[in-house]
């Protein structure tokens, strides 16, 4: 890609109103969408609001919708996009806008607090825990999560149905899965998952898995096993009978 110009339609506005504004800027080899946004910010619109930190796909700050697709702007190369047409960049639509590309994601931080914390079993005699690499790896997949909230952004339960007070969303189901499958954790979160975290709302459309920039197999590896756990523990008729008899 030699030096050329490209046009970007960037959503500018706040909680009250907003519209797309058009900016044209030079683009060069290797540039990502975030570079173009920064260039526009430095040269044409100093007050263009955007979150970013690491610029290497590790912090999950620069989530946005590029040509309608939820992406990390720092990991979206311009040569993957059709630059003969304007590129649209808009904030994540599932969350309330603050300004321009910045949204209010505070609901995620509050929601996480509602998930029962890690509670390890007592350590071995030397004060540490033995864990096998296989067990650790299963959980490490979930701990790769960079909290970019793109999975929350595409989840129809949140995006279309706005069930923010009944459903914690894929991110926090991944978080719960990491805790539940942690080989030394002793807490049981099944009842919470069913009653307050709303795991039943997920109907496995796998949109979250498709947009995860970390490639976490959210639905298959985290949510479905959690659903199975909930069913085994809370709906299994034999177990239910057993519980009734014990009471």
């Amino acid at each position, binding site marked *: 890609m030699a030096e050329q110009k490209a046009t970007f339609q960037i959503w500018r506005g*706040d909680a009250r109103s907003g519209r797309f504004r058009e900016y044209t800027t030079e683009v*060069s*080899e*290797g*540039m*990502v969408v975030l*570079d173009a946004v920064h260039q526009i*910010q*430095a*040269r044409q619109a*100093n*007050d*263009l*609001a*955007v*979150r*970013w*930190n*690491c*610029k*290497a*796909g*590790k*912090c*999950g*700050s620069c989530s946005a919708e590029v040509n309608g697709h939820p992406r990390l702007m720092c*990991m979206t*190369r311009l040569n993957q996009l059709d630059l003969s047409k304007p590129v649209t960049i808009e904030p994540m639509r599932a969350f309330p806008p*603050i*300004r*321009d590309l*910045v949204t209010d*994601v*505070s609901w995620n*931080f509050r929601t*996480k*607090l509602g998930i029962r*914390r*890690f509670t*390890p079993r007592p*350590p071995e005699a030397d*004060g*540490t*825990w*033995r*864990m*096998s*690499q296989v067990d*650790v790896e299963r*959980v*490490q997949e979930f*701990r*790769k999560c*960079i*909290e970019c909230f793109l999975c929350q952004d595409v989840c129809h339960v949140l995006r279309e149905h706005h069930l923010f007070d009944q459903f914690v969303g894929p991110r926090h189901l991944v978080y719960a899965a990491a*805790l539940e499958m*942690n080989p030394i*954790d002793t807490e049981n979160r099944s009842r919470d998952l069913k009653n307050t975290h709303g795991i039943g709302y997920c109907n496995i459309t796998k949109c979250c898995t498709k947009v995860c920039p970390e490639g976490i197999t959210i639905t298959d590896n985290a949510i479905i096993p959690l659903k199975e756990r909930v069913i085994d523990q809370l709906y299994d008729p034999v177990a239910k009978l057993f519980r009734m008899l014990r009471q």
Partner: protein
Amino acid sequence: MPEYETHDHDVLVIGAGGAGLRAAIEASAAGVTVGLVCKSLLGKAHTVMAEGGIAAALANVDDRDNWKVHFADTMRGGQYVNNWRMAELHAKEAPDRVRELEAWGAMFDRTKDGRILQRNFGGHRYPRLAHVGDRTGLEMIRTLQDHGIHQGIDVHMECTIIRLLKDGERVVGAFGYERERGRFKVFRARAVVLATGGVGRAFKITSNSWEYTGDGHTLAYDAGADLMDMEFVQFHPTGMVWPPSVSGILVTEGVRGEGGVLKNNQGRRFMFDDIPENYRSQTADDEEEGWRYTQGDKAARRPPELLTRDHVSRCIVREIKSGRGSPHGGVYLDISWIKARLPNAAEHIRKKLPSMYHQFKQLADIDITKEPMEVGPTTHYIMGGVRVDADTQMSTVPGLFAAGECAAGINGANRLGGNSLSDLLVFGKRAGEYAAQFAKTQVAGAIDARQIDEAAQRALEPFARGTRGEGPYQIQYALQDMMQDLVGIVRNASEMQRALHGLEELRARANRAGVGGHREYNPGWHAALDLPNLLTVSEAITRSALERRESRGGHFREDYPSRDPGFSSFNFIVRKNPEGGMDVAHAPIPDMPEELRHVIEEMG
């Protein structure tokens, strides 16, 4: 009279990376109320970028390791101008801090017998870095975050502190703004902990994000505290160099720890050409021995690619300047060659270095399992910072503490990879503990409205000038270009004198910076407010570097290319004089106790 919200905390922690979170957790556990200020959202601080691991002498992989070896390695790496007491505490306490992370939910990679796995890293004699693939920093910050949110800490996200408030000699609070609405906030506190990280944005090529503008350094300096060792900036040898938009992004040392080698455009492993005398006995004689070391052979010595970062960076610069560099002005870092040694090398690389694999694949169209990377030095870390008491982390100003990158001492002239994450934990904990202890002994100080008015007025000046003023980004870029060119990896007196004049001009320009728009989430305004900090730390780096007329660690003078024992007995400190100018002075290094001296001799 500016409008502001007021918050009261016993301890205020500024910065929410590893050090800030660890300090907040500790202070909170000590039973005081804690406020935690983050410049970005919680969990996004630069700690997430740390890749290689946490250095701690757990001796899980090599039972010859212990705190003494770690201490000696740290002092050797720092070329003996470290604060030896900090290096001692760090080496002794790091293992407990790592095990504590596991108790809070961290999931490190394991040894075959199920313990925490450790890997090789530059300057560490034995495999010492507890790690999670190449995303250890993310694991650490998430563990601290997920533990910390249940501790009753008040978190103030997207909030930037622009001034510390004093009552007489004592720090009693802080003043800042929140990004979302642009409103001012006053924090009253009995003790303040700075944990704001580094200064990387003062340079053009850097691995640091927008946040690293020397805020804590400048807040402390303006409050009258001493800064120390500011000439020691670490240029990490391996940053990406191509494409231009990603230049500076870090390529973990873990690549070399796993067997990656550095080559010039003639295919030569140039690191074998220059091995410093004090590391010769620890370095492999040939490629074969180096490879065996990376594969865990205890009889083998480490390959020269794993020499300290300052040295590797200079060797790379030498190759590039001699015309032996790669097409885009770097050298080659090759991990793909291990396919000649390992049966399923590609899978092994993807597993051990997953982020690196994706980073190059996505950003540079390079498959690191098949072809070499192009790398070159990038501004990564500053060893210098707020001068603190080794045990308590209190600065020279009562009530003001500092921990992590913004504090000086543990690293001396050069930091070993992996010693940063352990530093954050060890001294974050200590800062939190002693700040809480200090807070308990103090009554709340008086908040001086004049200090607030002054800071608020200054903060709003860029709006008064509006778009008639110069754009803040242009000034920042000019500063970055100048520091990179004149006070970078290779320094000399005349260039640094030019830099001092340049800084004066830039300061004048910064005073004329203007921004349009309003106060709500306005990055242009934020960039304008960061400028004075960048200028202060740039001046501190330049003035200290001019005074150190020798080469040591991260500081290299082409006009004084050798180490001079005359500079071994003190550190340079920087402080604000009554007229507002910057003074540079000497602080003698206290004599090392016999016991520690013996440890260094014993470890060779």
